[in-house]
């Protein structure tokens, strides 16, 4: 906790305000848009939960890396939240897109969203593993941050799928 307080105290008010606005945009605007497009509170709920979990997991991972493994959080590590949120946005975008394209069909039910979420999660997992591994092996100077980004991205992709299964009953 001390590290977070120190980090927060070392930020200028300008940085704190900017970061707060950024977090609010990501956590409110994206689920808000999902709700506006789909009119499905559950899908907006899933988007919000995925984004919050992505943020918290990234923060915890960086804290563990710093505290328990004594690794300094350098500039490359600061890009991890960006990569994780980027992939989370891809998950939310594909889910919303599939719902919007198919919800007017006669035989549509939420099971189809679940099945599609599984397919998307599977495809994204394969893409992430292949791409990140290829780069991690060939660019050893950024091996650890790339592997951490991969791990976190995979966890978030499947958490998103689990949330779809749990909330879309």
């Amino acid at each position, binding site marked *: 906790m001390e590290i977070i307080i120190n980090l927060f105290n*070392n930020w*200028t*008010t*300008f*940085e704190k305000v*900017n*970061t707060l*606005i*950024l977090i609010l*945009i*990501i956590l409110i*605007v*994206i689920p808000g*848009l999902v709700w506006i*497009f789909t009119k499905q509170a559950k899908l907006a709920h899933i988007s919000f939960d995925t984004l919050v979990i992505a943020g918290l997991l990234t923060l915890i991972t960086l804290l563990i890396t710093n505290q328990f493994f004594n690794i*300094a959080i*350098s*500039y*490359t590590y*600061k*890009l991890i*939240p*960006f*990569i994780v*949120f*980027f*992939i989370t*946005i*891809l998950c*939310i*975008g*594909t*889910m*919303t*897109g*599939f719902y*919007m*394209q*198919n919800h007017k069909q006669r035989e549509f039910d939420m099971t189809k969203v679940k099945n599609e979420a599984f397919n998307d999660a599977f*495809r*994204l997992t*394969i*893409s*992430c593993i*292949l*791409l*990140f591994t*290829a*780069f991690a092996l*060939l*660019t050893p*100077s*950024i091996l650890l941050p*790339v592997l951490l*980004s991969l791990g976190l991205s995979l966890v978030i992709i499947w958490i998103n799928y689990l949330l779809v299964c749990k909330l879309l009953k």
Partner: protein
Amino acid sequence: MKLPKLKLNMNVKPLLNYILIIVVTALFIASIFIALPLTEKYVSKATYNLNTKDKAYWSQEFIVSTEETDAKSLNDLRNIFYKRLKGFGVEEVSTYVENDKIRIDVTTTQDKDLVKELISNKFEVKIVTRKSDVNFDDSNNTYAYMLGTNYDATQWDRSDFRNVYITKLKTSNGDYANFAIFKLWPAGEEKFKKFLLQYNGISIGIDIDGFVTPHVVDNTSQIFAIPISSDDPQQLKVMSLLYNSGIVKTNLKIDSQKDLDVNVPTVNYIQITLGILVAIVVLYFYLFISKTTSSEILLKSLLATTLTISLYLAFLKIFQIPVDTFMLSIEAILAIMVTRIIAEGKDSVFYIELFLLIVLASVIFLGNGFISIIAQDMLILTALSKLCLVISAWYINKVKKI
């Protein structure tokens, strides 16, 4: 004698299509070759080497002391320093309050002297009038007009102006020169006009940290502008930031500055290219054998991915835009993923693009350091990937017809 008529029963359209396809293919191949590493070794007529930032980074710690040391003054000053340095494009800025002083850690590729200028200047702006007892025409003191001590303060200072806009204006000679235009808050406009009316045709001055720029008041002019001697865009940017990043209320000075170790990671460009090639080959080989995607989409996606990355790298190389190599590899991974998802998911393209646009634009404006830079690059890459998908679909369609 009548010449026999030569009838050419030729359809020109397919021929033009052939030529177009040949030209486009040549452009595709050219962009790939330019993007590949070591092109500069084989092409002597143009510089195609990647302009990396790796060796240009420097890192320094500045300790700044101030007259007022209460928490509010120090925090206000930290905000101003942060806005100045971020606005100038300094990659990483950290500010701390330690022992009633401000410590600023900077890691950047920007000009050292200009960065120091942004930290060391208070930039206190006041409008002043000439003291009646000072001889400004004294040949023994030709700099009398420049010294702030020779002027009387007025009620007008930087806080009365909304912002100071630097732009080129026509001078009385008909040439163009840079001027700082002082834009008033609407409430103060009438009062300022009345103030200037008293000095019509008389020289007053704008005092910046004790040095005065004279200004002859002309009431026929609609704007209040003072000339700027520099023509250097970087220097002008610094001036604009010093004018507009906030008002420093306390005197300050740099107590010390110390070099720090630069720990920005670097990645060999050849390794990155190899990484991109291996990643694309492995991913598309898997997609091909797994039969999860139709061959048509796969081909379009592969062509678009190759084009997106090679056009982006070729653009960076041709225009010599400085890049961070460690970010290039992460950008490549995300660009490959975005292109593939956009190529495959027709139904979700709009939503993915909209969400990415909102998030990336917000990060560009509100994020800091490298996160802001990578968001900017990803916005360009996402737009490029969309364009390349359209071009790829058109190209494949044309080639099929042939």
